[in-house]
């Protein structure tokens, strides 16, 4: 037991420092910026702590309810680093719209603590605790700008719909438990034997609940409203982190307890994938708000990430994980650009506000250009490779229908990305925006853009890590 604790030091560290920050925030007045900087520090410290956890072999701890392996460590690192960048980019924004409170970084930390538990879970109950921990923090975050009607509305919407999906998920879990008499992932697949009907029933409910969390069609309805209503910094968080965690849990579920039911879940995932890719691409065309548009775009991106999971092979999982990693960088860069659209503490988020941006802000528009073409999947930018890996895996399994529909959806999706580029580059300019951005924001935009732009020079940089994921 004591030895087991050694492996969860990162989680323990984050939860302890979380409590410390909470007390610190309560007893010391006007400490919000200290808490903010401290939480950045905590994230930085937790990176070596995670790296310190051995990940060469699969480790089951706490009575086999918690799993440490390469995938979980990789995703945890991804989660921590992207949270770090989310905090770096959004500090100025939070100050401007006056929600720079003590609770904000604390909620973010508790949310990622939940995610870290989620991705390592090997037991239905542990998984559910992690999921709820991250969701509860997210409900509050969504409505964090409580004087704003849209923000409160989005928090409430997210809460109600998410609670519904959690209910479905829990129902599915109980069915699975009932039919396999175990909550342990590894045990479930051993226990259900020949009669699989009940398990399939439960599995469908679980998949629906998870599909809701990554906003795959047809469980996407909450995404556009929540994305638009939440403060932009929270939208950025929404667009990246819960998706990474939920996708990993997808991998966990599909490839551990339900691995023998691949024929059953494959069809479901293919449907989710195709529907998300097409719907996301088509529905984004008419959008005028950048945040709403990115909501639809993320729906379609989740479709591609799911496409990798349909294959049932290691390559498929790896391609999904690399897709989500590249997607994260692109979203980070895109939101950094949105954060830069402000004039005297007023932030702009409609596509028309980008009009003629290239004349006044050539470098900012150049980064947006790179990011948008990359999101559209045009070579030689990183977004192309993300899609390329996924379709490599998909075509290896001869799933041509999925591949062709997916690639045609990229053409449709290219249209709305091009439309933004058109507004930036071809239209007449509006007033200048402020240029006094925080260093963190500039830094993350520069890093993300350079990563996207130069990824093709050394693509092994990501593959080296991802190719060690070995689950099947």
């Amino acid at each position, binding site marked *: 037991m004591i030895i087991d604790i050694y492996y969860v030091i990162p989680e323990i560290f984050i939860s302890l420092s979380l409590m410390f920050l909470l007390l610190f925030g309560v007893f010391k007045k006007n400490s919000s910026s200290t808490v903010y900087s401290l939480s950045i520090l905590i994230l930085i410290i937790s990176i070596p702590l995670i790296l310190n956890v051995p990940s060469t072999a699969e480790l089951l701890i706490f009575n086999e309810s918690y799993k440490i392996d390469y995938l979980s460590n990789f995703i945890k690192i991804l989660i921590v680093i992207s949270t770090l960048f989310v905090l770096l980019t959004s500090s100025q924004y939070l100050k401007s719209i006056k929600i720079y409170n003590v609770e904000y970084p604390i909620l973010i930390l508790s949310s990622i603590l939940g995610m870290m538990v989620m991705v390592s879970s090997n037991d239905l109950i542990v998984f559910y605790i992690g999921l709820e921990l991250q969701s509860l923090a997210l409900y509050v975050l969504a409505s964090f700008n409580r004087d704003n009607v849209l923000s409160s509305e989005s928090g409430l919407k997210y809460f109600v719909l998410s609670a519904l999906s959690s209910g479905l998920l829990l129902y599915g879990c109980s069915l699975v438990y009932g039919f396999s008499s175990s909550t342990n992932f590894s045990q479930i697949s051993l226990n259900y034997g020949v009669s699989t009907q009940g398990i399939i029933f439960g599995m469908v409910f679980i998949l629906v609940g998870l599909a809701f969390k990554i906003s795959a069609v047809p469980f996407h309805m909450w995404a556009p409203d929540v994305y638009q209503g939440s403060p932009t910094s929270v939208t950025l968080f929404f667009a990246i982190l819960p998706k990474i965690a939920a996708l990993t849990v997808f991998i966990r579920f599909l490839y551990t307890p339900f691995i023998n039911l691949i024929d059953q879940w494959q069809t479901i995932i293919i449907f989710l994938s195709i529907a998300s890719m097409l719907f996301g691409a088509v529905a984004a065309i008419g959008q005028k708000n950048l945040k709403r548009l990115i909501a639809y775009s993320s729906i379609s991106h989740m479709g591609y990430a799911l496409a990798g999971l349909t294959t049932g092979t290691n390559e498929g999982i790896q391609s999904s994980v690399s897709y989500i990693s590249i997607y994260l960088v692109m979203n980070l860069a895109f939101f950094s650009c949105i954060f830069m659209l402000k004039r005297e503490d007023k932030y702009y988020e409609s596509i028309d506000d980008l009009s003629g941006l290239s004349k006044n802000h*050539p470098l900012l528009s150049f980064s947006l250009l790179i990011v948008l073409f990359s999101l559209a999947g*045009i070579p030689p930018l990183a977004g192309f490779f993300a899609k390329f890996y996924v379709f490599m895996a998909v075509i290896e399994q001869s799933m041509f229908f999925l591949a*062709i529909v997916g690639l*045609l959806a990229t053409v449709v999706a*290219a249209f709305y990305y091009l439309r933004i580029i058109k507004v930036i580059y*071809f239209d007449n300019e509006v007033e200048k925006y402020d240029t006094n951005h925080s260093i963190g924001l500039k830094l993350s935009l520069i890093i993300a853009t350079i990563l996207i732009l130069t990824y093709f020079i050394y693509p092994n940089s990501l593959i080296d890590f991802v190719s060690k994921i070995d689950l099947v």
Partner: protein
Amino acid sequence: MMNIPILSLLICVPTVGALFILFTKSTEKYNSHKYISVFISIINFILSIYLWYKFDNSNSSFQFVENREWIYGFINYKVGVDGISILFVVLTTFITPLCILSVNSTIKNRLKDFLVAILIMESLMIGVFCSLDLVIFYLFFEGGLIPMFLIIGIWGGTRRVYSAFKFFLYTLLGSVLMLVAIIYIYWISGTSDVEKLYEIGIDAKYQKILWLAFFSSFAVKTPMWPVHTWLPDAHVEAPTAGSVLLAAILLKMAGYGFIRFSIGLFPIGSDYFVSFVYVLSLIAIIYTSLVALMQEDMKKLIAYSSVAHMGFVTLGIFTMTQQGLEGSIFQMISHGIISATLFLCVGVIYERMQTREIKRYGGIVEVMPKYSIILMIFTLGALGLPGTTGFIGEFLILMGAFKDNFLVAVIASLGVILGAAYMLWLYKRVVFGELINEDLKNLVDLKKSEVIILTLLAIPSLYFGFYPEPLINTVEVSVSDLIDNYNANLEIYMANKK
């Protein structure tokens, strides 16, 4: 000398130059950037001439090959040239500096960005012609969409947004299927290396469907009838330099792709679809020639004539004869030079008159004699008069076509007559006749810089028209080797079938 990675250098130099321009500020009214980029592209041209000089004509294998691991155990960065691709590389490096030189007052705003876009475009185009790996090829092929989209969209005419979108989405849609095919080839053959694929071949039962997937991409890019409609729009709206690049080099990527991939990789598929390509090519030749006759916009007329000329190219490629293939390559080079010049010529008078409508002109020979002479040379070149490169290309293609199919050749010959009709009629309406329009009387004849650019383009066009040996020698061995390989593959397939 083999140690210098000369092809990578060719690909990288323009990009490095573009980066340099991007991060420096130009003094004295933007001109220094223009000269830097001309200088960079001329260095590239000299490099490519050196490459051509060092190139061994008698050898059909790929030369100057560089092979580096790119994605471990998966895709290699592999470039190399053979007799076919080297000519396109030289064409690209030859056209680009002239293209940059021709940029003048028409591009007023954001000259710097324009130069960056053109230089990056050059890198990508050279990359397309050099790459010996399907994935690398796709990367360059598609990457070219980004700068071209911006060139049309930012510096284009009034309907530029529509044209830029049409160009982008059409080409992307075509290429997407090619990507599926490339990945599938990787899985059935275990490699995406073109040279290895030439050796081991691709399983006959997949060839037809793979051929179609590649065709969908190349047909849009060529462009072939009925997917040619993006081209007139793109040409008309693009700025002069953009049209030149588009006509001279971008269209050739597809013709090159047909030779290198469709024929080289899928001989059985190609053989199966020969008549299909013939029909489309003939429709392109006859139909678009007729459409060209009726155009009122000069650029549009030349754009349609490009479609017709590319129809000849695809026809020649799929005759699968030595003459036909050589003719096609020759025609592509020739069309690259001639159509580029014609667009530049239109650019010259458009800049002065701000209109491309043919009706507004007439009798400009009286005010612009030098211009009229140069336009005459290229009009004759475009209609294929003996003594210009245009003649040799068309002649060889028709020879190849007669060898293969008499009827096809006869119909294609009609295209030559129609070509003469629309080109000469255009020339007559613009240059001859009475000078009625008052505005035309103030036209200034060619400036020195324009004379230099146009003459530089006229020299190869006439020189290779009289003396095609250097070009033919370069491609000969590679082409005959390609045809041998093609026939050998077909024979094996037929034998197996029996």
